[in-house]
């Protein structure tokens, strides 16, 4: 066999082959290929996007790589910071991170740094050439980033904590190749991400966490689940976005689900966590400069723990947390942020059950809720975080306390179920929303009504509701809720079981067939426009068919479809507000003035 020559590698590069492909083809490693390239002077050069095929002079620093001669990207003498963008939008990684990156760039420019953005998503603001000092429209892979860095001198470091998972994934490789990662150190990030290390940290700090263990085999899993006690949350490790994650209530389900989870986990263990059923979930965004901590926002979820935080409805400030719990949350946030030596942002998720505050996880980076918190409070969290990373201290900023707000914001999620017929419509630990809206107002009910309206499924103020409750939900809480609907003048249709429960509790309701019980059934009623709100709380594994048929009919007819009692309670407040004609508009600038 002939030995490879630099010319052939150069030619491969001109055909778009990546170092990883070449490593695979030549059965060697990516870094060996890179070494060979650098030794033989095979780098890309950067050309300018100039609208005119170089016919006129253009100095716009908007660049792309090609394997040719004559580099057009000139590196200035200024001190630079490179910011990695969020890559393509997908569920779980969307516009929020573009927002964070853009704020970061603006803040660093204010601090006098030259900013360099690398991103490959044409839909974003961060790839607008007049946002940054310099834009490289390139893939976010180790290879492509290292190629760029070769040309840029006087780089203070690189920021990987604003673009979501995308830049984090390559941060270790970049650090290994000599790049300085700015902000929280990768050692501390690792502690937050590694379950064992993080668990140990919480133990040392005497902060409660749900019991958990890691297992590799089904017998181990069964033993652990029984030791911890059902229900448990089973999920593969090192898999993002809650994929192949399930809440398991008994041995049988665990047996059937374990195989899938371990398939996704590969050689890594499967995680088994105690699932805190009916716990309340809380999200916190905070800033830390290594010495002090600013709590930017504490958000209460309407749905109970177990539903992915990206899919849930959040309220800021929280409306029903006890002073004691609130103080514990603040204390834990500060303790954890300082223990992880956070420089910049941190997001921590909590669950409260039986008056105990548990820490679920901590992520020392920009979170999905940063723009929501900022829009609500007016505090540009991402900008302040960027400036802290660049060396400022928290005490240099005047930051508003979110508890001083005299209004409420609600973030509601938007789902693409219309596009995916027959997909499961109940929310769970796997995130599936594509986007979000916000409702802001003086009162909770009005904010809720606005948020619902903004999702495109406005609440109706009269008509009929359909309700089907699982046995766990047949409680006084449900009775009180349905009384409110009755008072507001709604007619109530219920499945036979739920109807019986309602009648026992002196609420008037009409029985209606489930889909497989006969006709006309609930889907017929929805199709005939006789139902204006659906409350259907899921019943574990059973009646999948009904759930789907009802959910799909509701989606098709744009009827609000609610799957938890807590959400139903909020919706009642919303309807009451709409009825009192109390939905005024106010600009953010006016909200912030006070």
């Amino acid at each position, binding site marked *: 066999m002939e030995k490879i020559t630099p010319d052939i590698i150069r030619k491969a590069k001109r055909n*778009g082959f990546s170092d990883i492909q070449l490593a695979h083809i030549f059965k060697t490693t990516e870094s060996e290929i890179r070494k060979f390239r650098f030794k033989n002077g095979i780098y890309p050069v950067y050309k300018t996007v100039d609208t005119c095929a170089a016919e006129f002079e253009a100095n716009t620093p908007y660049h792309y790589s090609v394997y040719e001669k004559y580099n057009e990207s000139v590196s200035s003498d200024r001190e630079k910071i490179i910011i990695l963008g969020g890559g*393509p*939008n997908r569920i779980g990684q*969307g516009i929020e991170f573009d927002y964070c990156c853009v704020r970061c760039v603006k803040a660093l420019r204010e601090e006098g740094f030259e900013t360099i953005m690398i991103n490959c998503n*044409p839909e974003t603001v961060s790839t607008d050439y007049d946002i940054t000092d310099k834009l490289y429209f390139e893939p976010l892979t180790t290879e492509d980033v290292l190629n760029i860095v070769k040309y840029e001198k006087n780089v203070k470091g690189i920021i990987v904590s604003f673009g979501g998972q995308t830049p984090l994934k390559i941060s270790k490789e970049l650090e290994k190749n000599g790049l300085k990662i700015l902000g929280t150190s990768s050692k501390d990030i690792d502690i937050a991400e590694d379950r064992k290390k993080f668990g140990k940290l919480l133990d040392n700090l005497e902060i409660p966490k749900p019991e958990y263990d890691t297992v590799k085999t089904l017998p181990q899993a069964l033993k652990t689940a029984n030791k911890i006690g059902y229900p448990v949350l089973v999920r593969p490790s090192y898999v993002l976005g809650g994929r192949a994650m399930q809440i398991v209530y008994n041995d049988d389900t665990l047996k059937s689900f374990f195989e899938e989870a371990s398939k996704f986990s590969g050689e890594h263990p499967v995680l088994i966590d105690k699932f805190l059923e009916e716990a309340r979930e809380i999200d916190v965004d905070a800033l830390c400069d290594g010495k002090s901590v600013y709590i930017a926002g504490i958000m209460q979820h309407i749905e109970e723990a177990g539903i992915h935080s990206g899919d849930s409805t959040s309220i800021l400030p929280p409306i029903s947390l006890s002073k004691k719990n609130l103080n514990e949350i603040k204390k834990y946030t500060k303790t954890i942020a300082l223990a992880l030596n956070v420089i910049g942002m941190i997001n921590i998720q909590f669950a409260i059950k039986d008056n105990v505050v548990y820490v679920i996880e901590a992520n020392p980076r920009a979170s999905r809720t940063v723009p929501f918190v900022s829009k609500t409070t007016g505090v540009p969290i991402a900008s302040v975080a960027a400036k802290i990373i660049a060396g400022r201290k928290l005490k240099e900023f005047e930051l508003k306390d979110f508890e001083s707000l005299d209004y409420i914001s609600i973030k509601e999620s938007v789902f693409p179920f219309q596009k995916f017929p027959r997909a499961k419509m109940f929310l769970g630990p796997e995130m599936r929303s594509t986007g979000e809206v916000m409702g802001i107002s003086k009162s909770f009910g009005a904010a809720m009504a606005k948020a619902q309206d903004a999702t495109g499924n406005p609440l109706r103020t009269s008509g009929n509701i359909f309700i089907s409750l699982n046995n766990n939900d047949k409680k006084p809480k449900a009775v009180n809720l349905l009384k409110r609907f009755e008072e507001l003048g709604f007619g109530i249709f219920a499945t036979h079981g739920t109807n019986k429960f309602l009648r026992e509790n002196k609420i008037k309701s009409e029985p209606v067939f489930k889909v497989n019980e006969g006709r006309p059934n609930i889907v017929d009623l929805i199709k005939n426009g006789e139902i204006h709100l659906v409350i259907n709380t899921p019943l574990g594994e059973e009646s999948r068919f009904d759930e789907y048929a009802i959910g799909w009919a509701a989606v098709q007819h744009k009827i609000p479809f609610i799957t938890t009692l807590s959400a139903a309670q909020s919706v009642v407040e919303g309807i009451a507000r709409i009825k009192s004609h109390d939905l005024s508009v106010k600009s953010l600038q006016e909200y912030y003035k006070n």
Partner: protein
Amino acid sequence: MPKRTDLKTILIIGSGPIVIGQACEFDYSGTQAVKALKEEGYRVVLINSNPATIMTDPEIADATYIEPITAEFIEKIIVKEKPDAILPTMGGQTALNAAIELYEKGILKKYGIELIGAKVDSIKKAESRDLFNIAMEKIGLEVAKGKFIRSFDEAKNFVKEVGFPVIIRPSFTLGGTGGGTAYNLEEFENKVNRGLTSSPVGEVLIEESLIGWKEFELEVMRDVNDNFVVICSIENFDPMGVHTGDSITVAPAQTLSDKQYQVLRDAAKKIISEIGVETGGSNIQFAINPVTGRVIVIEMNPRVSRSSALASKATGFPIAKIAAKLAIGYTLDEIPNDITKTTPASFEPVIDYIVVKIPRWDFDKFRSSNPESDVLGIQMKSVGEVMSFGRNFREAFQKAIRSLEIGRYGFGADGKDIYDTEYLLGLSAVEKAENKEKILSKLKVPRSDNIFYIRYAFLTGATVDELYDATKIDKWFLNQLKDIVLFELDLYTYSFN
């Protein structure tokens, strides 16, 4: 013409939450528009219900309303802020629909508010199938033949006129439920009857099928003096039948002859004039029959779009910003090009590289019992996209794949292939032929992972012609992909150490 001084306050409508088909490209265009109008000294009021956007940052607009984008709430904002005009072309379909609703409810008239960027008549002409067809007929351009029918007999008469295959679309069903393509009379009867039942109004649209035709888009702009520029031509790698948002696209168009391009260009100029978009950008889509060369106008969007964001990033020409300036009365020759500083916006961009866009899907999240759920069709399913530059198609294409973050680092040969190169090459002639047939038959149905199967097909010995028959992807693109595979195979003849 200088900018208008009779306007003081302008309301911009955003696009609301991120949904499939309407993503952060409208944050990009809206942010540019707000900045452009503020730069010109106007007071800008903004409504958008999506808090995750840059445009709703309080320092971008003068007054920012995070409120539901409905006529009811917009009216409340109008009462408070008293805008002189509304710019509805920056917030996707959401904003256009809201503007039409404001018009139809008489709210625009009541408060004396003007729509700028696109007039109600133009929006209606572009969006109503009937009005659009009449307009195209008037200027001598063809649209796909189609007819609304209410009985099978009516349908049968129509199909005699246009021939098979035809597309059956039941009216007013969501997500195209009950629709489909028919290749013969038996299928046709079944599908029309099913469509008539599933349509709540018992109506079905029968349309001549353009499946397999080549698809092109032109991003164009026009000003009040009837100056007209093409910002960018975009070619769909996937043939008609796959939504543009789900298609790999390439800019500039690669397989048009200069003559064909001029035909599209002239058509685009006529269309934007006839529809009457006086001050802004539009996206116009064409289908071309690969055999006869017949050109069909598919649709026109009288607003900035996902494609215009792509065209802006691909060329450096900020379409939304320029569209905002056209909307307040400037003409293209009066607006300087930011990038060169010396040329005006009336210079059409020229590019000396190739740009490839690839969509990103998230089917895993919607696993369902439906085996068709990842089939690509007329309804968009992707949740995002990446773009990349290269000096040639092969370079840009491979870079785009590695930008996707789907664990792939190029057009195969990255250690992630389901069928390894060595395995496929090592098969016996019979096994190769068997595999080839299997792969070619899979490729007849467009799916998100088909691109990698094209490579497997080449490795089992499929020819460009065979792949063309299976996929209807233009042979120019197939040859480019083949060249990548051949280059890869050549690399195996060298040793690294």
